[in-house]
């Protein structure tokens, strides 16, 4: 798929899939052409997720011992999402390093962030990083990102493009005036 990834083209794209000026609680929201278009795409991606399943399998083959959590983000928003724990982060370990990858179905783009959990007694501290990631995550995240590029032909947008405001649209629980291109392309939920 060849698609222009300029800010202008991405803004045009998201305005074809989200109605302007209507909140999700507005009864007119679900009947708009934009919402119908987005929902048709999203439901199709839920029903036919073979490429995503193959990708998850590929992660497990390429990174033995990695903990893979397939998160059903696509059931809510226009992006698949997976959380992958590094092989040295078994369940229950006091320190756990994970990378979350999201792959949009609206444009050939993906998004990455990393969580570093440190548990002490009953308290777990989590530090979240966005690219450029710290060295402890870099090689692992690079491998994961390369797998995504190979499987979906996606690219990672710059932080500046992701943060582009889309003030006339409401996405998920993010209110008018606070929505960004990242929210529109991947949904506003980070987990």
């Amino acid at each position, binding site marked *: 798929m060849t698609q222009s990834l300029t800010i202008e083209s991405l803004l045009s794209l998201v305005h074809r899939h989200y109605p302007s000026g209507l*909140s*999700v*609680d*507005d009864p007119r929201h679900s009947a708009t052409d934009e919402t119908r278009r987005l929902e048709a795409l999203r439901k199709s991606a839920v029903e036919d997720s073979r490429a995503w399943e193959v990708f998850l399998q590929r992660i497990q083959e390429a990174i033995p011992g990695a*903990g*893979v*959590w*397939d*998160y*059903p983000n696509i*059931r*809510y928003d226009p992006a698949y999402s997976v*959380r992958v*724990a590094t092989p040295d982060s078994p*369940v229950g370990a006091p320190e*756990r390093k994970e990378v979350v990858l999201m792959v949009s179905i609206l444009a050939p783009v993906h998004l990455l962030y990393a969580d570093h959990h440190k548990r002490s007694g009953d308290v777990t501290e989590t530090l979240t990083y966005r690219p450029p990631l710290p060295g402890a995550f870099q090689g692992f995240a690079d491998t994961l990102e390369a797998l995504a590029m190979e499987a979906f032909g996606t690219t990672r947008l710059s932080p500046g493009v992701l943060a582009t405001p889309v003030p006339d649209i*409401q996405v*998920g*629980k993010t*209110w008018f005036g606070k929505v960004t291109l990242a929210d529109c392309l991947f949904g506003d*939920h980070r*987990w």
Partner: protein
Amino acid sequence: MRAPKPWLLLLLLMGVAGCASGAAGRIPPAAFQFHEVVSQRGAAQAGGWKVAQTTILLTRISQRQPIQAQCDVEIGVPLVNGEGVISTLMAQTEAAASADEAARFALGARPGTSAELCNLFRAKLELLLALRLKGARVRHFVHEGVPRNVWGGE
């Protein structure tokens, strides 16, 4: 933590002379009936998904700024997260406790419209619930064919 009085947990009284406002009622765990929509597959460490769909009536009784909203709330939780199995009882209990706190917050924030009130309520509910149950999320109704409950409208 002090035990709440049943059905009066959301009582808010504003200390404004000549103006009392309040919201009453505790949301019970049974208001959230979870239904599995994604099964847990293979030996994955975490996964699966179950949702509860509930319409919750939020009311602020106030002489100056009364507001009422019927908020459609879909709560989704993993069957297994990085910390273990999330039982239905656990999901219901944590959802109810989070919903109580979120309702107090949203009503106290004095939003101007019912849509803003519902949005605030869902956002706070998700924030609180995800702290208790990793991976949990809250939206308006999304999944189709899930039995729906109503709380607070009687």
